C-alpha cells in the first residue's frame, strides 16, 4: 500500500524516500561500526598498558621472587585447562557421537535440551557446585579447579561434536557399511574422521573458554604465590586469578602485572579463536 501510494505521488515524495533510505543506511553503518569498536579499544588499551611490563622476569619468575612474575599462573592455567580438556575431550566427543549417530529421536531431543541448559548455566553456579562437591573431599586444589573447568567445557564439546557429525553425508557411512565394516569401526574411522576438523574446533573453543574462566577457580583452585608445577593437590594459581587479584591492588607494579597477564591471556584466546573461527565464518557466509 505504501508503495502504491508512493507511485501515485509527485516526485518530491520519491526524493524524501530516497533520503530516508540513505539516512537509514548511515545509521546501520554506525551501528556496525559501534559493534566492532570495543574490540579495537580493548586490544589497544590492554596492549598499551601491558607493554612496559612484558619483561623476561614477568614470564620466568614467580610472584615471590625478587623480580616478581607470573610463571606459576601461566603454568597453572595451562595445567588445569589441559587436564579439564583431557577429561571432557573423550567424554564429550563420545557423548556427541552417540547423540548424533545412535540416540533414539526422543532421547536425543531430551539430551540436547539438557545440554543447552548446561551451556547456559552461569559459571558462578557451576563453580559453587564444584565447591560444594569437591572442596570438602579434595580441599581447595588444582584437582578441584580442573573439575570445575570440566563441568563448564563438557557441554561445549558435546554440542559442537554433535553438530559437525550431523553434517557428514549419510552416503559416506553407507559406503563403509556396505563394504562390511562394523558400525563401531565405521563410526570411528569414517564418520568421526570426516568430522575431525569440526570436532577439534570444539576442543579449541572449550580450551579457550576454560583458560578464561575466573569465578569457578576463585572457589576451587584459590590461587597461590608458590611455585607448584604438576602438584594438583595444592592450591594452584591461574592467569584470570592474577588479573582479578591484582586489578584492584594499590601498588602500581601489581597493576602492571595484571595488565601484562591480561595481554598474555588475551593473545592466547584471540589466537585460538582466529585459527578456528576464520574457517567457520567463511564457510557460513559462502
Amino acid at each position, binding site marked *: 500500500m*505504501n*508503495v502504491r501510494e*508512493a507511485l501515485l505521488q509527485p516526485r518530491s515524495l520519491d526524493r524524501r524516500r530516497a533520503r530516508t*533510505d540513505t539516512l537509514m*543506511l548511515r*545509521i*546501520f553503518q554506525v*551501528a*556496525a561500526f*559501534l*559493534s*566492532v569498536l*570495543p*574490540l579495537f579499544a*580493548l586490544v589497544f588499551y*590492554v596492549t598499551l598498558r601491558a607493554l612496559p611490563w612484558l619483561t623476561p622476569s614477568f614470564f620466568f619468575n614467580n610472584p615471590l621472587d625478587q623480580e616478581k612474575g607470573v610463571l606459576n599462573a601461566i603454568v597453572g592455567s595451562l595445567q588445569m585447562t589441559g587436564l579439564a580438556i583431557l577429561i571432557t575431550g*573423550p*567424554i*564429550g566427543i*563420545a*557423548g556427541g557421537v*552417540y547423540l548424533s549417530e*545412535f*540416540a533414539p529421536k526422543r532421547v536425543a531431543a531430551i*539430551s540436547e535440551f*539438557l*545440554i*543447552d541448559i*548446561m551451556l*547456559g*548455566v*552461569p*559459571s*558462578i*553456579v557451576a563453580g*559453587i*557446585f564444584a*565447591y560444594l562437591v569437591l572442596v570438602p573431599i579434595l580441599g581447595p586444589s588444582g584437582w578441584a579447579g580442573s573439575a570445575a573447568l570440566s*563441568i563448564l567445557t*563438557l557441554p561445549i564439546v558435546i554440542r559442537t561434536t554433535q553438530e559437525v557429525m550431523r553434517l557428514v553425508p549419510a552416503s559416506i557411512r553407507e559406503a563403509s557399511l556396505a563394504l562390511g565394516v*562394523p558400525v*563401531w569401526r565405521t563410526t570411528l574411522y569414517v564418520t568421526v574422521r570426516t568430522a575431525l576438523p569440526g570436532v577439534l574446533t570444539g576442543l579449541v573453543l572449550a580450551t579457550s573458554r576454560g583458560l*578464561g574462566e*575466573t*569465578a569457578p577457580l*576463585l572457589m576451587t583452585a584459590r590461587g597461590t604465590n608458590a611455585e607448584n608445577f604438576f602438584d594438583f593437590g595444592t592450591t594452584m594459581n591461574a592467569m*584470570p586469578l592474577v*588479573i*582479578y587479584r591484582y*586489578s*584492584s591492588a594499590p601498588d602500581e607494579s601489581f597493576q602492571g602485572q595484571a*595488565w601484562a597477564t591480561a595481554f598474555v*591471556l*588475551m593473545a592466547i584466546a*584471540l589466537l585460538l*579463536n582466529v585459527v578456528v*573461527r*576464520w574457517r567457520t*565464518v567463511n564457510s557460513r*557466509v559462502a
Partner: protein
Amino acid sequence: MTSTGFDFSRQRNASADPLFRRILAVAAGAAGLLLLVLTGYLIAYSAPLWAIQSPISFLTTPQWITGIDQADGSTLEIYGAASMIFGTAVSSLIAVLIAAPIGILGAVYLVEFAPRRLAVPLAFLVELIAAIPSVIFGLWAVGDLSLRLRDSIEWWIASSIGQIVPWLSEDPASPSSSTVFRAGFLLAIMILPMIVAVSREFLRSVPISLREGYIGMGATRWEAIRDVVLPTARTGLVGAVMLALGRAIGETIAVTMVIGNAPGIPSSLFLPGQSIASKIANNIGEASGPIQLGALVSLALTLFLLSLTISLVVRLSLRKFSQITAVS
C-alpha cells in the same frame, strides 16, 4: 553363503557394536546427569536456610545481616536477596537496552548492506569480542572504561535528566568510583557480539525472494527491511536478545569488578550496588556454618532458576520461529 569366517565376523561385530553404543550412551548420559546432580546439590545445600527463613522472605528482604550479636546476647541473622536481584536485573536491563538496538541494526547492516568483502571480516571481528575472557573486560573497565564513562555519558545524563529524575542523579562533588550503570554498560559491550551473531543468523534466514518481491514493487531497501525483513525475523531477534539477557544475568567476574559490591538497593543508577553473582563471588570464601553457606547457595539457586527460565523461554519462542519460516 555359509562360510564360517563370514558368520564369525558377523557375530563379533554384533557383539562389539552394542558395547560401543553403550559406552557412548554413558558419556552422553553423564552430561545430562551432571545437570540433575547440580540441581540436587543446590537444593540440598540451600535447605538449612529455609529452616529459619521462608523462600518468599528471602526473595523480598533487602537486608543481608550475618550473625551480629545483639545487646541481649542473641544473634541476628537475616538473609535477603532483594538488593542482589535488583542489581542483577537492573544491570542486565541496561545492558540489553544499549546492546539490543546497536546489535540488531549492526546485524542488519552486515546482512543487507555490507559488501561481502566487508561483511566477512566485520562478522569475524564481532565474534572475536566474544572470545575475550570476561576478567579482561573487568580489568579494562576498572582501569580505563569506568573513568571515561564517569566523565562522559554518566555525567551528561546526571547533569541533565538527573536534575529532575532522582534515580538518575549523581553527586557532582564526589561521583562514585563504581556504579550499577557502569556494570550495565560493560555488560552491553560483552553481550553485543552475541546479539549481532544470533540476529545475523535469523536475518539471513529470511528468504531473499521476499525482499526481491517488495523491492520489485518499488520499495526502497530501508522500506523492505522495515516492512518485510524485520517483521519476518522478529521472533528470532527477540530470541537473540533473550539469549543475551541470559548471558548478562549470569556474568560474574566483570560485574563483580565494577559494580562496587555495596549492600542495599542503591537509590540511583549512578551509585554502587551488587549483583547475585558478585555477592556469591565475594562472600563464598568466608562463609562459615551451614546457614550462611545455605544463604549463598540459595542465591546461586535463584540465579540458576532465572537463567533456566530464560533458556526455556528462548527455546519455546525459537521453536515458534522455525514454524513460521517453514510456512513462508
